[in-house]
């Protein structure tokens, strides 16, 4: 048998059920692993020591320790969104995804670091300091779910949840060499996910392999009466989609995803993956998405507009940091609370979003972006009439150095170029490891039509079973 920490989620649950390992063994192994490496990685903002005493029911995740991104509400555990403004906030309720994990016997091992309010692609925007990439401690783990991806890569959790607004699950999954899924919009309940951009984001699993991702997604997906935008998929059984067979499947290769700014070595790794799948019977064809170059501005306008409204509630009255002083007038107190509580990137996005929605600019920015969104979605709708999946790089480059882009907001926004179109279109996508550049992992992005997660998993699983990148582990 593999060492306990090397077991995948699927294997671990199996071993626990069979009694080959005990819950105490698992809990001890993971907690001591965190003690061993997290001072170097800083993947966690809070570790749930109580986990030892939690009782757990039989279920699909029986006693498996799962890490949760710090913007997903956990009853009794801090949920700060890596922001000073939510310092000390402990939700009185569980997010639906967390409740579903618990209902299947999963244990919540801790809360993971992230870019403040999920705004960023490097986890450098955390008010509590950055997370480091387990493959190279000088590099970022990607973001915004950097802690969730680093924890899974470094064996600090068997699996984790992240949230993906414009690539925040797939980007760190690619940078950390693990699997990350952005589900179809509406497939997973957002209840309890602290909103950044409601119309774009979904919670998704980050795991060591495709089977784990399918398992975890099948647990958290489905209609939730607390989320009016959630729906039931045709089938929640994603495990049965896992067959090594892509014969007869057609893949589109959107050439805009390989454009200017793409590291040629990343493109090469992705093309090798495409060729490998072709050798197993998949057909492919290059395709052009005319509106793709407009994804980034459209995405950022929509995300910032929604964010400016979502983040208005942080005024220090009901929870979180407060600059309240007796006798001081409310406008002053609110403005001071927010000035001291939010980081620079969050303030920037709030101000920009406020601008995009304000009188006289709404049509030119917000409404325009929503119309461009229609066109981008149209490009995808059109492609999925012809193709079962689309294949592309997840990120145009491997993980960059800490500090390299943080001073220049636009340079940071640019790295999201291959992930944001998926959120605009609301389609599912998965990132699976497909190679290395300079010792840093590269991710292959597999996209499918809305609610066609099965075919996405099938292609991802086939590729994974025919390659070996997912078996490599970081040196830490």
């Amino acid at each position, binding site marked *: 048998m593999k060492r306990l920490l090397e077991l995948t989620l699927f294997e671990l649950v199996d071993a626990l059920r069979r009694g080959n390992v005990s819950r105490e063994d698992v809990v001890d192994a993971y907690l001591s692993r965190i003690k061993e490496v997290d001072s170097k990685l800083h993947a966690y903002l809070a570790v749930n020591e109580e986990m030892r005493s939690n009782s757990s029911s039989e279920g699909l995740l029986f006693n498996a320790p799962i890490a949760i991104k710090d*913007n*997903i*509400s956990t009853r009794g555990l801090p*949920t700060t*969104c890596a922001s000073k403004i*939510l310092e000390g*906030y402990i*939700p*009185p*309720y569980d*997010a639906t995804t967390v409740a579903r994990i618990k209902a299947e016997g999963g244990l919540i091992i801790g809360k993971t670091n992230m870019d403040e309010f999920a705004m960023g692609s490097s986890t450098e925007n955390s008010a509590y300091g950055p997370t480091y990439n387990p493959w190279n401690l000088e590099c970022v783990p990607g973001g915004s779910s950097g802690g969730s991806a680093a924890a899974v890569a470094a064996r600090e959790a068997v699996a984790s949840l992240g949230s993906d607004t414009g690539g925040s699950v797939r980007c760190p999954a690619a940078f950390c060499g693990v699997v990350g899924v952005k589900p179809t919009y509406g497939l997973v309940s*957002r*209840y*309890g*996910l*602290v*909103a950044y951009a*409601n*119309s774009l984001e979904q919670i998704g699993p980050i795991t060591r392999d495709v089977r784990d991702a399918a398992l975890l997604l099948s647990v958290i997906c489905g209609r939730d*009466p*607390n*989320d*009016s*935008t959630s729906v039931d998929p045709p089938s929640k059984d994603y495990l049965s989609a896992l067959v090594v067979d892509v014969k007869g499947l057609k893949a589109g290769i959107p050439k805009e995803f390989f454009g200017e700014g793409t590291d040629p070595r990343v493109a090469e790794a992705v093309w090798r993956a495409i060729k490998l799948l072709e050798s197993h019977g998949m057909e492919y064809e290059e395709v052009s998405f005319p509106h793709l170059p407009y994804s980034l501005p459209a995405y950022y306008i929509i995300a910032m*507009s*929604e964010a*400016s*409204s979502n983040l*208005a*509630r942080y*005024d220090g*009255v*009901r*929870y979180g940091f407060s600059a*309240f002083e*007796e*006798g001081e007038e*409310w*406008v002053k107190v*609110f403005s001071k609370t927010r000035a001291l509580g939010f980081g620079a990137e969050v303030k920037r996005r709030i101000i920009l979003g*406020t601008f995009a*929605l*304000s*009188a006289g600019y*709404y049509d030119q920015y*917000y409404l325009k972006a929503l119309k461009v969104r229609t066109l981008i979605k149209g490009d995808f709708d059109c492609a999925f009439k012809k193709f079962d999946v689309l294949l592309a790089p997840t990120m145009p480059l491997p993980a960059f150095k800490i500090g390299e882009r943080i001073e220049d907001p636009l340079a940071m926004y640019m790295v999201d170029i291959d992930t944001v179109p998926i959120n605009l279109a609301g389609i599912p996508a998965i990132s699976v490891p497909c190679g290395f550049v300079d010792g840093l992992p590269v991710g292959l992005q597999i996209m499918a039509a809305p609610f066609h997660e099965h075919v996405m998993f099938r292609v991802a699983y086939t590729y994974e079973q025919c390659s070996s990148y997912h078996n490599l582990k970081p040196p830490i």
Partner: protein
Amino acid sequence: MQQQQDVVIGLEVHVQLTSLKTKLFCSCPSDYRGKPPNTHTCPVCLGLPGSLPVVNKKAIEFAVMAALALNCQVSERAVFFRKNYFYVDMSKNFQISMYDRAGGTPIGRGGYVDIDVDGTRKRVRISRIQLEEDPARLVHLGPIELSPYTLVDYNRAGIALLEIVTEPDLSSPKEARIFLQKLRSILEHCGIFDGSLEGSMRCDANISLAGGARVEIKNITSFKEVERALSFEIARQRELLKRGQQVRRETRHWDEDRRMTFTLRVKEEEHDYRYFPEPDLVPIVITEDFIERVRSMMPELPDHRAERFMREYGLPEYDARVLTSEKALADFFEACVKLYPSPKKVSNWLMTDTMRVLNEYNLDWSSIKMEPEHLAELLKLMDDGVISIKIAKLLIFDVVLKGIPPSKLVEEKGMKRIVDENYLSQLIEKIFREFPKAVQDALKDEKAVHFLVGQVMRHTKGRADPALTNELIRRKLNELQRSS
């Protein structure tokens, strides 16, 4: 009230859908009145991070019913928007409201309410009806401006509000009050609203005088206040115009305690609400079937009820309108007529005697303790000659205010009519001895007889049977005449 042709008033009324059991976007119980602060909250109405709103289906049904009752065109597609602005009573610093963009229209548009002002009908047009959430309740330590902080109770936050906006069709404070009363009666008849609950109907008023700018007045908390606030504002604006000064376009706050308005913000400080569709909610499509179903459930409304009262009970129009101006009053009337089938008499006792008691104590109908059985009993006691009308008018105070059955009052207070001939004869003899001059007059002048009757009444505190007293006095006078 003087007719004020140059005054233009429009109202924006906020009515709580008090018949709902839960709030608009969460399952918190809506019966927050009189409860300890912050005991009726959940992650949604507290605006906790990550919480999401879910629309109360019944609220849509009630809003559509209100739209139909106010003769509105019902929206085919309604969309909730975020109205973004900061304030200390907001749990999210945006209010979920409706707005006509993104293919959505308010639940109701283009309706009207007919009101009766001094015997004339007037049509007040309704421009829109929509649903939105109530903010939290603020409590201050002492006077607002001296309070070092504000206390916030989120029990009210998220209660379903119906916003009803009129066209500027009202031309006096009195009309505004009558309109609100009529609106209250209509919504109460729909069964979606109870106007007797404190703060369940609030309004903002837009008012302009010829030659002045439009001024918005906020924080009017009842239809009694609307008349006061608008009268104050008209006087203020008239005074400014008289002195050749300008009326600024601004928003003013009605201070109920000091009975005056003061500046809240001027035009330059107006909000930029940055409306956009609430991404956590999906559009509401209202089908013809749904509308028909709501229409079929719609109870009788005040205007129809008034017509039926005229037809069925033979009441004059004036009576019918007054009785239907409040649902509880109309219900009382009908229940009472069932027990005492003399509608005009019941109507008279309600509209004059009962109202007089309420007015004297500055109460409204909701605080009445009298049951329909009580009034019916009171009227029967009179018919049976047990009490006089004068006694009845005395008794009704305790019946209305304390809800004591009249028969019990008569018993307890010994107010039965005196029909004892012996007793009365002896009393009359005593009075004749006391007032010989009056007796002499009475022998000659019929009118002087009344004085003697009055004396008997005075001695019996009105309990002497008037007919019997009259008869006994005349008999006595006749005896004297004959013996002289």
